[in-house]
């Protein structure tokens, strides 16, 4: 399969002179089209920095990021905005939707931003809303919807432009377990049926267990990679928990 995302020896250093913080210290990672990959790790392991670099919000200090054959680190200004809106989709933990717009308009806005032809917008919005099970609340404002509906609406907004890569940062962080399950289920369907490539950052083992592959980061380095293969979700979840405990244990040994 074609590689959508290739991260090679990515470094991100904060600070100057003597007090350097290596948030990312040589991370390499690659995603093939249609993959659903989770990134896990304790606080300060560099997950969010990785996601910010990939999503072009932050610039890495060294290394390269290639998405869909384009070298990100060389893009500038308007090119960057253009790349972001055409090739990437975002789902964040909070402050997702514009509170002054209805769900329908929130989804349609990302299509207006990529200058999609106006006649096609309505059909595409409704298709995506059906897919994510929010067709009945399209005319509602975000504060009239439940957290789960909001997050699915955000997912619809991220997916409606058919991006090469969807980036999710703790998408279930603010949701109760039932809404989380519903959202993950939908992401799974998007991944399987529509072939969306998803990179999801989470620190919740249960959320991570629905991915096909989980990457563990620690202190800015790749620690371990787990593949689900043919495991059931439960078995995969156990494996993940094991790794998480190990990582925690490792820390305890040092102390």
């Amino acid at each position, binding site marked *: 399969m074609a590689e959508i995302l290739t991260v090679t020896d990515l470094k991100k250093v904060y600070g100057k002179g003597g007090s350097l913080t290596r948030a990312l210290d040589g991370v390499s990672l690659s995603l093939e089209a249609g993959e659903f990959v989770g990134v896990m790790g304790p606080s300060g392991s560099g997950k969010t920095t990785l996601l910010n670099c990939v999503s072009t919000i932050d610039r890495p200090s060294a290394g390269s990021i290639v998405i869909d054959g384009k070298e990100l680190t060389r893009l500038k200004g308007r090119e960057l905005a253009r790349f972001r809106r055409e090739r990437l989709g975002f789902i964040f933990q909070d402050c997702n939707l514009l509170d002054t717009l209805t769900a329908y308009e929130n989804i349609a806005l990302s299509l207006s*931003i990529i200058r999609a032809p106006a006649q096609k917008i309505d059909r595409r919005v409704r298709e995506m809303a059906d897919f994510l099970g929010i067709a009945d609340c399209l005319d509602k404002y975000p504060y009239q919807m439940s957290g789960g509906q909001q997050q699915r609406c955000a997912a619809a907004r991220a997916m409606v432009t058919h991006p090469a890569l969807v980036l999710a940062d703790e998408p279930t962080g603010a949701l109760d377990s039932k809404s989380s399950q519903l959202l993950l289920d939908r992401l799974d369907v998007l991944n399987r049926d529509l072939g969306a490539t998803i990179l999801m950052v989470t620190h919740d083992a249960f959320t991570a267990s629905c991915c096909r592959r989980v990457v563990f980061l620690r202190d800015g380095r790749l620690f371990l990679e787990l593949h689900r293969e043919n495991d059931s979700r439960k078995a995969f979840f156990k494996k993940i928990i094991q790794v998480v405990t190990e990582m925690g244990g490792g820390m305890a040994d040092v102390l």
Partner: protein
Amino acid sequence: MFSKLALRNVRRSFRDYGVYLLTLTFGVCLFYTFNSLDGQGAMVFLAQNGNPIVDSIMIFMDIFSVVVAVVLACLILYANRFLLRRRKRELGTYLLLGLNQGQVSRLLFLETGLIGLISLIAGLALGVAASFGMSALTLSMFEMDLSAMLAVNFSPRAAAKTVLYFGVIFLLVMALSGVQVSRAKLIDLIHGERKNEVLKPRPLGVAVFQFVLGVICLLAAYAILLVFGMALAIALPFLCFPMLGLGTVGTLLIFRSLSGFVMKFVQGRPGLYFKNLNVFTLRQWISKVHTTYLAQTVVCILLLLAIGITASSLGLNSTLSAMAGGEAPFDITVQNQSGDTELIDFDAVLREGGFDPDEKLAWSHDTLFYYNEKEITGIEDASGAITVSDLDALLTRQGKPAYSGSLPALLETLEDQLTTGNLSLRCVVVPDEMAEQLEVRRQVWSADYAGENKGETEQQLLQLVRPLYEKMSVRPETRLSIYGDMMGNKILALFLGLYLGFTFLLAAAAVLALQQLSQGADNTGRYAILRRLGAEERQMKKSATQQVALAFLLPLALALVHSAVGMKAANDIIFTVGKVDSAASSLITAGVILVVYGGYFLATALACGRMAKNA
């Protein structure tokens, strides 16, 4: 350390809170301009001619200055409170760093003092310029050429008064900021981020209904004004109140519902609806309508008043001037009411006092008015009579055709043109020989001065006439005094209109600007989301500017429509009496209004655009 911090904070205020400084500067400028009237050309001219109206104008200005100062004080306090709320977090950080509240208060004290100083200096400089412009405007209202009186002048009295009033206001601001800081709890300051207002869904159908209703209200109000004419529509309460009421309600409804109406319209046009950030801009507009529509209505009405007052007072100026020409055909008229007992030989009186009439008077004429007697003239309803040769002499002097009607006959409309000041006689014009049978009722002496220095000539003349008062009932009236009275009244009305108009305009524009700035700051989170979605900086800036433009330009647009209709009605009156020839002055004043309002618009749009860019 403190002064350095204060200085840096003020420098930042320049960039972020331009509206605050603008308001302070305009306020100072306005206050100075209207308090420095006594040094302005027009007032100097009136004062030179010993016109008592100058004193009353100054008294009025003093009284209204207090009103204006109170309005400005409220505005500045409001703006300051708004700024402090914005800076909650910063102030909290100072406290967290270990400054005590007294020190933070001192910091604010220094900042306010510095800002006050800057705005006072800038405002006074601007005030001197504005005062010059105002002087030019008022002088241009006079019939005669007074451009010699035009000069840049600085009034220390007005400047001192401005400094005093604004000093008190700034002290008040300092005190209030101190109180606010000392009362604030640290936890509130640190978590001072404001929450967005709760939005309520309002069906667009209602907006469409309200909009149509608003338009109908306005059309009804316009119809009343245009059908009945301005005079009737204002004079009759049962026309006036419905008209004003309908106009206000219509304006209110339009501002309240226009966004929804436009939304409904645009939703049917996907090409427009889904273009760029239009959806976002429109929704932002709708969501803010309920906090802005009242301010917009007030601004619209104030703009209407400002435009209306200026345009009509300037238009009225020409009308009054036309009337003054009729009231004062000669430079001076002295009426001797005791003419039936004793006649005065004006020529002799003047020569006796060392006044040479041949040299100093271009023309003079002694006219006798007689008692009308029905048996002789054959005309009943008249109280006086004048000979046809006297009448012709007076008319010819004014460049009018001689009397050509039948004799004897009642003078219908010409009474006004026989004397400067009122004659209050209903006259019959009789052949010269018939007058010999009539008894003298009143002696009326009229003259025109020779030479350039009319004021001086008049003073000398009045000096000589005054002693006559003791012996008999003598009443002099001069063109200059009538003219001065009229100009004084007119200037008083114009100044009061401009003064109050500008003050309220300033207040309304500043409130609108502060509202927009606060909303712009609330929007930063939304712009951050748009940026993540890949919206270009240019588009976001454009959307931010559009939102400000909608808030500022809609009231102006509606006010222009209102005033166009109003002026149409007003002109119908003005045209019947005089002609509007002060287009230039009207344009200048309209220009000044636009500069003030436009300044606020630009400052706000720039600041909001910057907020969107830095989101």
